[in-house]
């Protein structure tokens, strides 16, 4: 059974070298790092070594790394933690319309807690305008969170520039870098960020582990209370194996970064160019400053979930921004935020590459994609050209009546 895995933005396969580092912590080295005996010390040392490795790569000090249970948890900790701790300084917080739900839903929650939230627009390729951020910052703005590289359309923001604006205005800045870690600069000093989220699941590491980089002096409130681990910021017995795995995975992607960028950029551009040869197909997201592993296109008049499942049957795994595949039956907020009609969002497919992908696999997939798009178009009562769909009412309409 041969499989072609185009869903590396959802999660990556754990690297064998990562797994090997983790295994001892499921076997002999099972101690609780908070215990005072040797079993505990052994586990504590593993965590502190991992912390050292991570801080070396991020160019920060060990004390600035907080291990958490996921990217979602790190985002929640940064956002709730900062906003609730600093609410006496101001009630205005800023984010964008293309955040991962792990960020956007926190902001929605905070708006119910009395915070005033601005969701910044993005342009047709998903970029945040520095000017918009400047204008949005008010006297009572305390916090900004902007996704580094978008998980759906691959847009990479100029985080350095955005962080600088916040710094000048004395506003704390967090970036969700889960998708960026493999391909972008994650030197926190150089970026000038106050907080940054990473997770293991996207870097060929284990799922269910994340980190929050929190610059010294940035004060946040915990979201979990208990034994006071991680300097009182994140209670709960540390997941030693996952933490060790996370550090190893980050080291590996850091070492292999340049090579992967070169290889995947070439494959990505080939894939995009071939897909755009299918009539009435549109690229979502930019050509430049795009994640090297992200391909996202819309095929007019077909619905993404049905294409996803036809491909699934052939062992080809992708994802879609169609409403039909989402829990809330709404089309992707990211694909619509860049000005696409809901029709285009329903027709959008994301193919996210990873380090094991070969050109041969892409060619095989292209053959199936082309056939299935043809098949589904024959089944479809719609007959719009992609230009007509692009022109359509750009606002999401109410569905379900």
């Amino acid at each position: 059974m041969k499989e072609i895995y185009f869903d590396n933005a959802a999660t990556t396969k754990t690297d064998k070298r990562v797994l090997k580092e983790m295994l001892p912590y499921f076997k002999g080295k099972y101690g609780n790092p908070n215990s005072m005996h040797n079993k505990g010390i052994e586990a504590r040392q593993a965590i502190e070594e991992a912390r050292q490795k991570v801080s070396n790569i991020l160019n920060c000090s060990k004390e600035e790394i907080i291990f958490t249970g996921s990217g979602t948890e790190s985002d929640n900790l940064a956002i709730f933690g900062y906003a609730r701790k600093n609410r006496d300084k101001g009630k205005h917080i800023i984010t964008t319309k293309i955040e991962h739900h792990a960020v956007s839903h926190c902001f929605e929650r905070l708006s119910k807690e009395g915070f005033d939230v601005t969701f910044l627009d993005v342009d047709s390729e998903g970029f945040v305008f520095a000017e918009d951020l400047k204008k949005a910052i008010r006297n009572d703005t305390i916090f900004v969170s902007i996704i580094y590289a978008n998980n759906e359309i691959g847009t990479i923001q100029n985080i350095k520039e955005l962080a600088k604006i916040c710094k000048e205005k004395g506003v704390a800045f967090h970036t969700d870098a889960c998708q960026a870690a493999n391909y972008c600069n994650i030197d926190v000093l150089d970026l000038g960020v106050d907080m940054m989220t990473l997770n293991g699941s996207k870097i060929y590491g284990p799922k269910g582990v994340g980190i929050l980089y929190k610059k010294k002096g940035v004060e946040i409130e915990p979201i979990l209370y208990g034994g006071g681990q991680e300097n009182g910021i994140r209670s709960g017995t540390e997941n030693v194996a996952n933490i060790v795995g996370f550090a190893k995975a980050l080291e590996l992607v850091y070492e292999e970064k340049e090579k992967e960028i070169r290889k995947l950029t070439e494959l990505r551009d080939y894939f995009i160019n071939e897909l755009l040869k299918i009539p009435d197909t549109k690229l979502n997201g930019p050509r430049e400053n795009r994640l090297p592993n992200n391909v996202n296109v819309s095929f007019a008049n077909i619905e993404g979930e049905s294409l996803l499942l036809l491909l699934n049957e052939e062992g080809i795994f992708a994802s879609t921004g169609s409403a039909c595949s989402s829990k809330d039956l709404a089309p992707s907020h990211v694909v619509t935020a860049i000005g696409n009609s809901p029709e285009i969002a329903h027709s959008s497919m994301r193919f996210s590459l990873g380090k094991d992908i070969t050109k041969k696999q892409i060619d095989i997939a292209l053959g199936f994609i082309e056939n299935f798009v043809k098949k589904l178009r024959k089944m479809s009562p719609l007959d719009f050209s992609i230009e007509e769909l692009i022109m359509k009412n750009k606002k999401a309409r109410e569905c379900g009546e």
Partner: protein
Amino acid sequence: MADIKKHGKEWFYSKIVKEHFFHPKNMALSDKDIELIRPNGVGEVGSPACGDVMRMWISVENGKIKRCRWRTFGCTSAIASTSMLSVMITEKGGMKLEEAEKITAKDILDRLGGLPPNKIHCSVLGDQALKAAIKDYRKNEK
């Protein structure tokens, strides 16, 4: 292309749903397909913005639906539901219009062996498209 084998893993759709999705029955592959059945009623429901549109052509003779063709823009469930509905109304010599009008989403669901809970609405469109086609037929008859 040939070196990818079917892996036959189950997903959350029933066998019957999959069968109708991968091998849809009575689907209009071309305009010729539609002409051939000499349709005397057509109905369309849904909205492309909402992600599902169904169009159904029926050919009624002596008060029974003899043949039917359809096209659907939508998910697996929507496609399988339309396909199943097209079988239900044309099997056994064709269904009487009065009975066809009484088909509910639940009837389609039962024949499909169920759908995932958040996909139930996809089968609702099917019976609505059929009702629209019957209405169109009755209007044409007058």
